[in-house]
Every structure is written in C-alpha cells, then in structure tokens.
C-alpha cells in the first residue's frame, strides 16, 4: 500500500480531522472550567490557579 494518498480529502484525512476537532473541543471546553472547579473543591484554597497551569 502506498504511504500517501493522492487527494487531500480522503476518508482517512476527514476522520483524523474530525478526531482533531473533537480532541481540541474537549481540551478547550475544560480550560475555562477547571480553575473554577478547583476553587470550588478546595475548602481552603491553597493553590489557586495552579490547576490550569
């Protein structure tokens, strides 16, 4: 099997791009929430902001 396809959009490239979107969506959806959740969980806020990094 050839390593490379001849077209830009093939089943494989569309699947990997869709997977990329889902992965980035997951990461970016967590970012604005994680510090708030961290502060909520920490009874005494020892390390505010450290969770998001």
């Amino acid at each position: 099997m050839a390593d490379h396809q001849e077209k830009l959009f093939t089943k494989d490239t569309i699947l990997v791009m869709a997977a990329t979107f889902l992965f980035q969506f997951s990461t970016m959806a967590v970012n604005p929430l994680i510090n708030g959740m961290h502060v909520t969980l920490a009874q005494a806020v020892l390390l505010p902001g450290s969770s998001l990094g």
Partner: protein
Amino acid sequence: MNIISMILRPVAGNLTDRISKYRLTFFGGSICFIGTLGYVFAPNSQLLLLFRFINGIGFVFCTVCMATWIAFLVPRDHVGEAMGYYGLLNASSMALAPALAINLYQVIGYRPMLGVSAAAVLLMVILIQFVGNPAQPKYRPQENKGRHHFKIIQKDTLAVASIMSLLSIPYFATQADIVMYVAQRHLNVAVGMYFFIYAVVLFAIRIALKNFFDTVRFGVWFAICAVASVVYIVFLAIMNSDWQMAVAAGCMALGYGIMFSICQSTSLMLAPMAEQGLANSTFYLGLDIGMSLGPIIGGLIDNYLPLTWFYPVMLVILPIVLVIYLFNRQKLNGAVEHH
C-alpha cells in the same frame, strides 16, 4: 499543563517518528479520556490536579501526533493546505468550546459539562479506529543503528518555531487579558465577540486561499502577516468601538491565525520525512513558550506601565521577528519547493 507540554514535547516528537501515529494518538487520546473523566469524579482539588497532569500528558502526545498524521496522509504538495484546515479546526474549537462550556455549565453544572468534554475525547478515540492508514514511521531501527539519537529539537525548524513563539506573545496576552483590558479601560465594546469574529474571519480567509499555502513563498505571507499584526495591535491599543474591535480581530486572524498554519506547514516542509514528528514538536515547543510568555509579559506590563501601553509595548516583538526572518529568508522561502 504548559510546563508538562514543554518537557514532553521532544519525547512526543521522537516517539512520533518511531511509532505509528495511530498507536500514539490512541495512547494520548486514552490518557486524555482518563484525565477528563477524572475531573468528573474528582472528590478533592488534589486529585483534580493529578488528573490535570494526566490530561496534560495526553494533550502533548495528541497535538504533536495528530498534526503529523494529517501531514503523512496527504500528498506532500498539499501539506500547506492540510495544515491550513488543521489550523482552522483548532481556531474553531478555540472559539466555540469555551463559549459553549461557559454557557452550559451555568445550566447543568461543572461535572456534567466536564462529562460532555470526556464524551468528546472518547468519541475521538472511537473515530480513529476507523482510519485505514496507521501511518507507520519511516524510521527503521536496524538501518539507523548508532546514529538516530534522541533529539530535543529539529534544527531546520528552529527559525520557524522562534517566529511562532514571538508572534504568539501578543495573541496569548490578548487571550488571557482582553476582558480585563476592556474592563479597566472602560471601553464600550462587545468583547465577548472578539474571538468569535476572529474564527469567522479565519474561516473566510482559509476558504478563499485554497492551495496558496503550498505555492506562495514564506516571505510573501510573512510580509502580509507582519503588516496585519501591526494593524491589529494598533487597533487593540486605540479601540473604543465595536467596529475597531472587529478590525483588530480580523487582522489578528490574518496576522496570527494564517501565520500559524504557514509556520506549521513550513516546519514540516523544511524537515526530512523521518523527522516530521520532531519538526511538529519543535513548532509546538515554540508555541508553548509564546503561550507561557504572553500572559506573563501582559501581567508585567499591567503591573509596571499604564494600561494604555499594554499593546504598544507588544510592537517591540515585530522587529525581532523581522531580524529572524532576514537571517533565515533563503531557507524559509525555499520551503515551498521541498515537496
């Protein structure tokens, strides 16, 4: 998470050049799923922090590996176009996901919203099972015995990574501080629309440019993007109305969003096929540095200078970027011929 990224980028790059992209993405995606699912059930902040570290490990492997996987699947003379679409997907998720998360968690709460995030990454792990080409690496241990060592960076891509790193500083300073900047300066603008406008303009530009990423020299893009960067920084400095903010967001899409894809595809075209993963990890290492420095420099400006200087000071970056380009222009402009 940024610290983990910077430490693990070279590891991810070297592994990407030795292991199939499918295997590494599956590993990274599974780690991400464990980390994200951990957020949903974390009973205390210490465990939340632990799951953040786990998620960070998966994040590094997935970002390096998936971009390399796409570059591997497309013809070499379409790498620029593919990276353009890849950058567009990133920008879309960066614009949509935080807005959705912030609005939805207020209705359903933190844990269910984090569950949605875990479901998205699980779906990603399922999707890659249907990809036919696992992208086996070019590297053959028996052929490279004794001369293929662990490398921290891909030296051909260092200039591109440095340019990306510097251009990322005003972008990530804006991402971190624009709400504060608008509030403290009492500006009458709909700041919540800023990154939405950015994503829409980037989408329009990306569609209009078709395959120009693969045929136009780096220097042409660099000149356009440098001018657009000056315009967006100046407009952010002087904005006092929605249309001025929209001009800034649109020029940022051109100056940073397009340059992101150009730099990523250039780094892949400059590096040999056996070091595509390392080239991507070097590119992302530059991005990580810019991502860390942006908010730090923004904070320093905010602390030590009047807020009106926040953006004008950022203009200092552009002459430095220009010098890096001028010293490397022959190599960078020749990248489009490396198909």
